[in-house]
């Protein structure tokens, strides 16, 4: 399989001005996405999911963000004649370089697209939605006529199953429902048939009844356009049937990754098991929901990175956990970062 995005040893930290400290938001992230693969990144709030998405798009505030490691992107689109390899982030001899804006502009919306969490604030309130879709097409196709662009927009609206596309074209965001706007955002993201679509909690701000519809639409369209999907969510149940691979992110570290089937049937890391127990499910009706006690460790304190990151909340911790930073232990394709599996391999 063709790899399109490769992230190696990625570290991202923010400088927090008010505390005058560095916040180590992502540490040692390794992941690879192949052509048309659908992956999910699951974790609770503040675990760094959105930062990871923003890092792939290089949308973090440049002044206060520090990167190290590698993010490599390999475009495979035939329609685009750009170079065949982009180093978004590269660290050589301790010096980190990030891709310049011009190249990044070429990637954004063209090769890598993103759908945001809150559809209501994602669109410009004073520009009609049709014009906002047009923009993304215009940004990357310079020689299309006005009529062509208009037709493309209408076609996109049909594709994301919006009723009466011609009518919606001239509407403003406040005249549409959240579900409709999210469909438009998905349309914008897929307009140029990108290799990768990042969906950052695309259903969190929507009605519960819409969640499945939007996720289904996303997965359906991604397959249709031959794109890869990075679905970011805190709701592990949401992705049960829609992705191939799952990465569990905890406090800025990937603690377990495996195929979706494995994660749901055979979770290994204590955090994953707890996460599955926490989620609402019909079978748990009448029972008290599990919660995970305590909070994240302080990510500005470098001491916590020397032990297992889940140490303070883990129900299965043993003595060694406090002194040894676990590595990934493999069970075939299933990898888990927990010392309990040291001898089980």
């Amino acid at each position, binding site marked *: 399989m063709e790899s399109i995005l490769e992230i190696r040893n990625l570290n991202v930290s923010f400088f927090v001005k008010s505390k005058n400290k560095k916040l180590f938001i992502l540490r040692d992230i390794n992941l690879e996405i192949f052509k048309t693969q659908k992956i999910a990144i699951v974790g609770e709030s503040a675990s760094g999911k959105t930062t990871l998405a923003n890092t792939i798009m290089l949308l973090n505030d440049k002044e206060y963000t520090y990167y190290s490691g590698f993010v490599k992107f390999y475009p495979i689109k035939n329609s685009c004649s750009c170079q065949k390899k982009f180093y978004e982030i590269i660290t050589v001899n301790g010096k980190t370089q990030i891709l310049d804006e011009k190249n990044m502009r070429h990637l954004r919306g063209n090769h890598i697209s*993103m759908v945001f969490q809150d559809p209501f604030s994602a669109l410009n309130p004073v520009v009609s939605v049709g014009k906002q879709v047009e923009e993304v097409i215009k940004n990357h196709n310079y020689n299309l006529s006005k009529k062509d662009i208009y037709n493309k927009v209408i076609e996109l609206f049909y594709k994301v199953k919006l009723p009466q596309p011609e009518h919606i074209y001239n509407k403003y965001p406040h005249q549409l429902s959240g579900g409709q706007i999210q469909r438009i955002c998905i349309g914008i993201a897929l307009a140029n048939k990108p290799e990768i679509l990042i969906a950052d909690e695309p259903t969190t701000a929507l009605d519960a009844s819409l969640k499945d519809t939007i996720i289904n639409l996303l997965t359906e369209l991604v397959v249709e356009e031959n794109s890869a999907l990075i679905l970011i969510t805190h709701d592990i149940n949401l992705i049960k049937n829609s992705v191939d691979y799952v990465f569990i992110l905890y406090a800025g570290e990937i603690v377990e990754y495996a195929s979706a089937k494995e994660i749901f049937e055979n979770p290994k890391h204590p955090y994953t098991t707890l996460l599955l127990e926490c989620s609402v499910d019909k079978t748990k009706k009448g029972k008290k929901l599990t919660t995970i006690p305590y909070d994240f460790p302080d990510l500005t304190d470098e001491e916590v990175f020397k032990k297992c990151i889940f140490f303070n909340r883990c129900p299965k911790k043993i003595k060694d956990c406090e002194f040894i930073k676990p590595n990934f232990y493999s069970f075939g394709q299933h990898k888990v970062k927990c010392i309990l599996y040291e001898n089980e391999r």
Partner: protein
Amino acid sequence: MVKIIFKRIILFIITFIGISFITFLVINLSPGKPSDMLEFSSKITYEAKEKIIKLYGLDKPLHIRYFNWFVRFIKLDFGNSFKDDRPVIKKILERLPATLLLNILSLILIFFFGIFFGIICAVYRNKFLDKIISFFIFLSYSIPKYWLAILCMIVFGIKLKILPISGLRSVNFEYLTFLEKCLDIIKHLILPVVISALGGIAGLTRYIRGSMIEQLNSEYIKFAISKGTPKNKVVLKHAFRNVLIPVVTIVGLSLPEVIGGAFIFETIFAYPGMGRLGYEAIMSRDYPLIMGISVITAFLTLLGNFLADLLYIYVDPRVRYK
């Protein structure tokens, strides 16, 4: 839409009557009367004084005087000035062009530089460029305009002798050719226009900077960037259109200043505008003239608000489709 406009017009009329009544009360109740000048003169007999007071209707009670004024006002008759007995409306129209010229020029400067500096400061916020502009902005915001005016008059007019210090025309204006006449007026305008615009530029820059930063931090800007939109387009097309909405209100509110003129400022520069006319009218308790000027200013303020509302409907689709 029609309903909103109709409602606005009704409100407009009520507010207008209220303003004119309160202004009338305030000037009539404030100490000093137009007849004060006569009071201390020994040459004028008591009977003559009484006659004059009666002639101008100053012996009647306040509410009747207001009513009389109002009846005449509806017929668009502002009465005659106490001072020289010329119609008020004529005196105002004489001064209007000069004031319009000065203030429209200064308004253009304010909006051009205010928006320009505001955007630059927001885009380069906390960087060197922003800091240096902000420094000068604060400086020009805090310097009292009348002080700066006098200072500039001394420096450019008296010491350097490159700019005239007062008025709108030179003494020999009549004898100049057309081109020289234009140059003469431009020279006279430089100081008043620049100094009166300075405070406005400073205020607007801060305002635009603040609201631009707020817009640039919003989610839709991030989404626009994620679409691969170039930065200048993100700033000018997406963010600026949203910044424009509150600016419309400022445009509306600055309309009365354009016509009303700045009282103190025009007096310092001996500028033949509405502001100085108003100042002189107040000093001599010229009631009809004061009423004329304040009513026109009030009318324009309300009109400005009304136009701002209409503009609002134009720039903000959220208002348009309610």
